[in-house]
């Protein structure tokens, strides 16, 4: 599948190879680990990344999170696009 750089609701995001979700045992908070670095994740970012398996689309992730948090899609859409765009820029996720 071609790798694309623009994130849309049809994009299928996945964690980049060599990154791994883990828990910071000192704080109990979720983190994303990658070579030589760590991103401390907010609960929202962690929830978003937990859905990024390369199979489901961003649109489907938004719908799933809206159901999970009993919220409207619109604010969640902004969070998801913003979070994934920033991680994409740092090559921590790939989208197809």
């Amino acid at each position, binding site marked *: 599948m071609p790798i694309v*750089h623009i994130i849309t609701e049809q994009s299928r995001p996945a964690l*980049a*190879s*060599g990154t*791994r979700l*883990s*828990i*910071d*045992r*000192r*704080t109990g908070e979720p*983190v994303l*680990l*990658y*070579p*030589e670095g*760590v991103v401390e994740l907010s609960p929202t970012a962690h929830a978003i990344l937990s859905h990024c398996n390369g199979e489901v689309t961003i649109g489907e992730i938004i719908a799933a999170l809206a159901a999970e948090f009993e919220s409207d899609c619109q604010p969640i859409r902004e969070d998801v696009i913003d979070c994934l765009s920033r991680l994409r*820029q740092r*090559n921590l996720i790939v989208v197809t």
Partner: protein
Amino acid sequence: MSYRPYLLLAELTHRCPLHCPYCSNPASYPTGNELETADWQRAIREAAEMGVLHVGFSGGEPLQRHDLPDLVAAARAAGLYSNLITSAIGLSRARADELKRVGLDSVQISFQSDEASVGDRIAGATAHAKKLEAARMVKELGFPLTVNVVLHRENIERLEQLISLAEALGAQRLELANTQYYGWAFRNRSVLLPTREQITAAAQAAEKAKIRLSGKLEILFVTPDYYTDRPKPCMNGWGRRFLTVNPVGDVLPCPTASEIPGLRFDNILAHGLAWIWEESEAFNRFRGTDWLPAPCRNCEFREQDFGGCRCQAALIAGDAAVTDPACSLSPYREKLTRFVESCQSPGAKEDRSSSTTGGFSFRQNPSG
């Protein structure tokens, strides 16, 4: 204030098939036996409990330890992100497969040059072709690959070729690491230190490449502190974020701290890792800012560079507790500057390349 470690550097052995003259291993090795597998596994578990997130398996050459997969597995079980820092010598397909299977996360391979003849001469071994092969295999297995090149007077003019090499290998990260002058590198510094002109050109080439390759290949280039006015924030502060366990189990605030005369290190065979981090003399000696000498004590940069590097202060000024001589405010800066100026004549370079060893004092392995 209480600090927590993020990275454990596990120096599994000082044995290495290469003999690079810029190695930062101590020029005099610690005495004693290498740790047993179970001791390393315990150290890894304790590190994770303390909040460590990354473990770097290093050396020497970590592949010289046949129990490396057991240690990687321990890191994975403890939730740590593991990175193999290797020359790639000894990385057969079977070993790479096994490391992948037990959960190794990433691989960093050193290159001495983009050219086999130069690379092999600097390494003191036939290595370059094996590195190329190993790097391709690492990519095939889906590991993220970091290429590390230690820069010095003989290879720094080939920065663009080195960048092309990393690009061709599909690396996602390239560390263009100017030699740090400790250990063997300090012994060889008069033949290793690039000229000011070389540094300026390299910095410009690195900057251009960073822009060109943005989003594809992350490039790190840091101007060596012999050429800066401000010292580096060494280890992000003593005993703040990093800990190193050396092959015999001594725990050090930085990999080269054993060169500081009079500093005593506690060993994981005698104490728990958390006790050593919190309580030991070595970790507390230069921790925080209370110990800072003048002019650091009142300096506006004291929380940015923490007084610089203790090992460099010991090596250049003969006292680990003074301001890093790389700082323009250090009374010892002039001594460093005189050395830097003595390396600017282009003449020295021709003299050196006419000798077979290039004037290097090559790194030797520990005896026994």
